[in-house]
């Protein structure tokens, strides 16, 4: 108890140095936690895209919808599988879609942006029940009406309700804005599949998504379809497919982030080591006094290590608090795996708070070790001023 008071008061006594040092350590923890939050936010956005009850079918060998091609005949047979849910109007819960990546010139600043466009059909709402229209209405089949995800509406002024988007040499009227629980669909524009196929001279679909009556049957369903020589398709659970599409970007964020964290932490650790070393030098007589009173070398080591850990922990708390301010902040960037603009947010979890603080303690251990060992090694008579007379 007295030891902790001693360490804390010493940090407070040198509060300007303490504050500067813990700011350095805090910055490292901030970067570390922010990167974890960003990568997690991305994975969560992609993981939320799609429904675990759905299976997405692509042509064999295609890694994404953009590369995939399924013929109208093929999809007709595939939709008729017994595992697929039959809706109230006797329609099967299967949606055939085309996926397009378009480059759009933003009207306000004239900059180019990549946009994901999906040609779909109204059954998509039955296949993906978590998706809801928050403003306006759904598109009318056979028209050039579109609905846009909430993130698209936020980023493109021309994609607001009743505005018109220009692509494929046609004008598309925005009649609705939808939300898909912060998933990747929020960064897409949806419209009538037939209109889109005509506009872009497509004869084949990109993918087909099927809602299964029992999600548990997916492995068997997948095995059966992929083995069937008639189809040449690959089957994936829908969220797994979308998660896989962000793997590259998530890895890039993590690697860059960890690199930055390591570089920053070397600087911060050196700074904190110097602070602790100065503290030891400044308190040599104090160390000699404590040793004279009967405190062992171990006690001295412990006191300075505790001080270093408390310093780092305070920095860690500052860093985590700073990172917490980013929680729910949304950024938009190009997903390298798809080439499309994707909006996702920083997302803080209790686990990340723990990891951030643990990382801070780890830095505290590293930067305290050398000064604390030096403090513990000081000879009492030298510490008290080499009084040999």
């Amino acid at each position: 108890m007295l030891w902790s008071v001693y360490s804390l008061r010493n940090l407070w006594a040198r509060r300007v140095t303490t504050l500067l040092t813990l700011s350095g350590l805090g910055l490292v923890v901030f970067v570390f936690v922010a990167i974890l939050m960003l990568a997690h936010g991305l994975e969560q956005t992609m993981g939320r895209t799609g429904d675990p009850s759905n299976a997405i079918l692509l042509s064999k060998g295609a890694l994404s919808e953009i590369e995939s091609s399924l013929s109208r005949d093929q999809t007709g047979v595939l939709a008729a599988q017994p595992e697929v849910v039959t809706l109230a109007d006797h329609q099967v819960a299967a949606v055939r879609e085309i996926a397009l990546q378009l480059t759009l010139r933003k009207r306000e600043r004239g900059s180019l942006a990549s946009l994901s466009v999906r040609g779909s059909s109204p059954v998509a709402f039955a296949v993906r029940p978590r998706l809801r229209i928050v403003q306006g209405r759904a598109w009318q089949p056979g028209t050039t009406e579109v609905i846009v995800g909430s993130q698209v509406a936020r980023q493109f002024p021309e994609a607001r309700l009743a505005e018109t988007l220009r692509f494929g040499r046609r004008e598309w009227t925005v009649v609705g804005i939808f939300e898909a629980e912060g998933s990747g669909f929020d960064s897409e524009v949806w419209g009538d599949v037939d209109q889109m196929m005509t506009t872009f001279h497509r004869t084949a679909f990109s993918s087909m998504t099927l809602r299964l009556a029992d999600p548990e049957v997916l492995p068997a369903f997948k095995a059966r379809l992929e083995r069937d020589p008639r189809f040449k398709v690959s089957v994936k659970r829908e969220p797994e497919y979308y998660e896989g599409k962000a793997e590259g970007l998530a890895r890039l964020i993590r690697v860059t982030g960890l690199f930055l964290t390591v570089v920053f932490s070397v600087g911060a650790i050196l700074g904190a080591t110097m602070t602790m070393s100065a503290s030891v030098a400044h308190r040599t007589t104090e160390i000699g006094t404590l040793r004279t009173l009967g405190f062992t070398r171990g006690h001295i080591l412990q006191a300075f290590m505790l001080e270093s850990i408390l310093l780092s922990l305070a920095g860690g708390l500052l860093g985590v608090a700073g990172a917490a301010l980013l929680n729910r902040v949304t950024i938009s960037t190009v997903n390298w795996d798809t080439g499309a603009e994707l909006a996702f947010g920083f997302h803080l979890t209790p686990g990340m708070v723990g990891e951030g603080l643990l990382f801070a303690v780890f830095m505290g251990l590293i930067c305290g070790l050398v000064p604390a060992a030096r403090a513990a090694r000081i000879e009492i008579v030298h510490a008290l001023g080499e009084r040999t007379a």
Partner: protein
Amino acid sequence: MGDPVVSLHNVTKTYIRGGTEVSVIRDLSFVIPAGTFLAIMGPSGSGKSTLLNVMAGIDRPTSGSVVVAGTRLDQLSEGEMARWRARHIGYVFQTYNLIPVLTAAENVELPLALTHLTRRERAEHVKTALRLVGLGDRMDHYPRQLSGGQEQRVGVARAIVSDPTMILADEPTGNLDRESADDILTLLARLNRELGKTIVMVTHDPRAAERAQMIRHLEKGLLEMPP
């Protein structure tokens, strides 16, 4: 006078300085009986502080045996020596050496952190020690809020709080004005007289030495024995 608390036999302490061997204490042998208030006098460089450090177990002799409170110090390990110091030695420094970030009470409590006393027992001991030195009303003051004389009285309270076998004082009045110095010497004399504490004080001030029961002079590492 009781049994010997300190017993030095042929103690020598040499240092190597600039490649030359310098003898600070030479072949010193003497005993200090329990309950003695001894003043060791001598000019600067006579070896008096080194002698005190050897008796306190914070420095080791180059040769000879040092027995204090029944323990042969030159045979103890570093850790054993620290534990022994905590149990048997109360040390009063010339420059008080209080920890600036701790209050008077916390400074006095420091040696008790090495005991198994409960928090309440520690608080009781601290209160008693500070009252004994006349600072019962300054418990929560930081060293910077105290005068030099008061700081040294806290230093004395810290030295006696764990009820050590012996109090060693290195120039305890060296940094004090006459009045404060007298207060400290009166306090040390009282501790010796009323509580029977063995006190060894190093000083170069004859007026301070006069307050002790016994004075020994150290000259060039050799103790001048009484005629």
